[in-house]
């Protein structure tokens, strides 16, 4: 139980948690807008990670420009995605949409493998590889970048939804599509923008996590599932819930794999999830919704 190890783990946990939070936010925004759980959300982070590696390594494009291209690419990607996986099924029940998003997820994974190969790729680091000394412990500077970028994005998002007209229109669409339509808000467009924004959040997550792990076709699957866990832990549909859930999960996971068992690292998220669903199904921030007789 030495103090500096714990601090290091907290830093690592916060960084991983931030990534989960970004992907979880993507889940929640889409869920709020169209009541659909997008099981390809993890792939929204895998695709931009590959795009970034490719742009930087093969075309030698500088990092800043790469980020801009990746974000624009993912914005378009999100719109195309919703057009294929969601739009044709928008009047149908929960199951077909779930399966169709899973199908697109499998498509993207195997597509990535064909285009970029099966070998894990490493993303060039935008930060130096030497550890930063903070509060007396050494911390990977990438962790600091991850946490700061996530905070900045959350700040931007708060401003966007609270202060801009577009953000308010998107919120109105999420709350009541019929009413929004009556007020002249182009609902279909708002939904498309929500998908675009959610996939841009994925781009941020993919680019930020890339330098920490290798970029592989499978990186999205676990990321997506754990982000989904985070969203449920926080209370599905709640934006602060998704963020807190992600960070909570990130930290718990690092500690549990250190103190309990690293072999079962990926199981902790789901064990916690099942416990939370049993004891407090509405999550930390969610409200219990009862069906009316």
């Amino acid at each position: 139980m030495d103090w500096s190890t714990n601090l290091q783990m907290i830093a690592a946990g916060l960084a991983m948690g931030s990534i989960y939070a970004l992907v979880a936010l993507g889940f929640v925004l889409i869920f709020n807008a169209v009541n659909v759980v997008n099981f390809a959300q993890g792939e929204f982070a895998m695709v931009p990670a590959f795009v970034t590696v490719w742009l930087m390594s093969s075309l030698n494009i500088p990092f800043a420009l790469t980020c801009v291209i990746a974000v624009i690419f993912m914005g378009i990607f999100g719109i195309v995605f919703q057009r294929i996986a969601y739009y044709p099924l928008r009047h149908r029940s929960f199951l077909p949409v779930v399966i169709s998003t899973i199908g697109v997820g499998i498509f993207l994974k195997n597509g990535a493998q064909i285009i970029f190969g099966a070998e894990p790729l490493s993303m060039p680091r935008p930060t130096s590889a030497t550890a930063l000394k903070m509060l007396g412990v050494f911390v990977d500077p990438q962790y600091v970048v991850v946490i700061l970028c996530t905070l900045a994005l959350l700040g931007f998002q708060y401003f966007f939804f609270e202060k801009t007209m577009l953000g308010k229109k998107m919120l109105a669409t999420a709350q009541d599509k019929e009413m929004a339509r009556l007020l002249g808000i182009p609902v279909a467009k708002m939904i498309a923008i929500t998908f675009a924004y959610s996939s841009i959040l994925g781009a941020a997550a993919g680019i930020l996590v890339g330098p920490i792990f290798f970029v592989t076709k499978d990186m999205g699957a676990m990321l997506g599932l754990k982000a989904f866990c985070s969203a449920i832990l926080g209370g599905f549909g709640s934006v602060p819930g998704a963020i807190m859930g992600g960070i909570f999960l990130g930290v718990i996971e690092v500690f549990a794999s250190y103190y309990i068992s690293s072999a079962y690292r990926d199981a902790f998220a789901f064990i916690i999830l099942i416990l939370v669903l049993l004891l407090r199904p509405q999550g930390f921030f969610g409200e219990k919704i009862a069906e009316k007789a």
Partner: protein
Amino acid sequence: MTTRLNRLLVPAVLVVAVLILPRLVTSNYWMNLINLSISLAVACLGLNIVLGYAGQLSLAQAAFWGVGAYTSAILTTQFGLPVWAGMFAAFFVAAFFGILLGIPTLKLSGHYLAMATIGFGIILQLILVNAIWLTKGSDGITQIPSPWIGSFELKAPGDFYYVAAVSLILFTWGAIHLKDSRVGRALMAIRENEMAAGTAGVDTTYYKILAFTLSAGYAGFGGWLFAHSCSHYISPDTFSFEQSVIMLVMAVLGGNGSAIGSIVGATLLTLLPEMLRFLKDSYMMFYAAGIVAIMIFMPSGIAGLVKSMPVSLRLRAWWNAGSTAARQVASAAAARENSGGKPNAFSIEDCTGSGEVLLSVKGLAKHFGGLKAVDGVDMEVRRGEIQALIGPNGSGKTTILNMLSGLYVPTSGEIALDGAVVTGQKPHVITAHGVARTFQNIRLFGELTVLDNVLIGQHSRSKAGLVAGIFRPGSQRTEEAALRLKALEALEFVGLRGKEFAEAKSLPYGRQRVLELARALVSDPKLLLLDEPAAGLNAAETEALVELLFQIRDRGITILLVEHDMSLVMNVSDHITVLNFGKKIAEGSADEVEHNQEVIDAYLGMEVATEVSNDA
């Protein structure tokens, strides 16, 4: 009788097809694939029980498949048990894991359930990888033995095929029998409308766990078939989340809810990738694109496509004509024509003791956070009367019905029915005590037939369990016949004769209301709760309803109804209780209530009421 004999053609054709297949397929490679598809088909049949029948999404089916495979593989390779013993172990150990999954996920639905089952599957797979002492970890288990019959080893794929084919036929037979039994109907009721299933007498908790258990058992058996055939080798990679997804797609492609559909789906999706081999690396992409396309263009799967074809319509009509249910309906209709008199209808409550207190409610309250929907209500309902519960919108009428029928647990207070305290009991328990209800916004089992809806209403008055439902001993057939007879009488009573095999949701609105009434009546209630039975009915239908209400009362069934149609309330009620803002403000006969100042105030608002009384 000839249709009955003709129906034997189906098993005959099946037996011939099963025997001939290995003669047609000579390559071991394809024979192995066929065995694999059968193994997957059995697992998908299980998925069809939990998803198609009970409507609960499970994304852990491959994990149960793995549990079955590993159980038998470990028992036969490490402990030297015979393969046949492994078969039973595979089924029961997987079923046990199904209970483990079923219990924590009971309260969950939709994406929560999906997520919990994914988590469960991933945890199981991690255990397979990491519990090396037991499972040999990622290396997997090799040289899993084949089953023996006497001194003959069923090693060749063409020989093992017979074991697989016989199992598949038995499991399909079980699944089809299950669907048309008391247990199967209870599962489908949960799928169609869980709340209504509870008030119709179905213990939703028990049946959901049962569905998960049985589904996992099927998957476990499928796993046994997999472990002891093909490569005789298993490793954790096979039993992944992706494989669960593939099984889900197989079940949905075949047609959700159709047992035969699941088999077709499993076979197609096992053989199809083989035919797509020429696409090399990109075949998974085509596969995935195919999944999306199926979801978009074939919403109800292959079963849905086939169902609407003229050939299959005629085939089904032919098959159904021979069914026991159809013959019973026909003979009941004939009997009715001959006798011409009134039907003797469902069993009649003993009318003695009329006037004594049947339902007594003391200090009943329900608070939602700060909102006091019902706040300390005392009321009594006397046996043999029609009592009305009225009040302005939001006064707590439906909340009281929900507490009486067990859908809400009261915050405080006591509910006693016929002397027994039933406060806070689950809906099916209260139904068994003799309370039935209808809903304000009709809650039928829409995709099921009219007859099935009324059969489910008798759930608490019948007994046949899972085993009896599948094997159909004489006692089960007698019970089914009695249930159908009573259902037919109830349908006759409310005027739905001739609609027995129509889908409930296809009925016009007014007919749906009386069907709901019939479903409630067949549970032999002492007390019938009706939530706005006249809502949405036209004048003629309302008149017929009033007539029905009197007839029901005359049969000794006490009625408590919530209704906004004042002329109906004043017409039928022996006694009226008036609520406002969760409190009782008046009660008495129609006449007393009509002239009660507080009631007038509550309905018209203080000011208007004063003006009205001044004018008068």
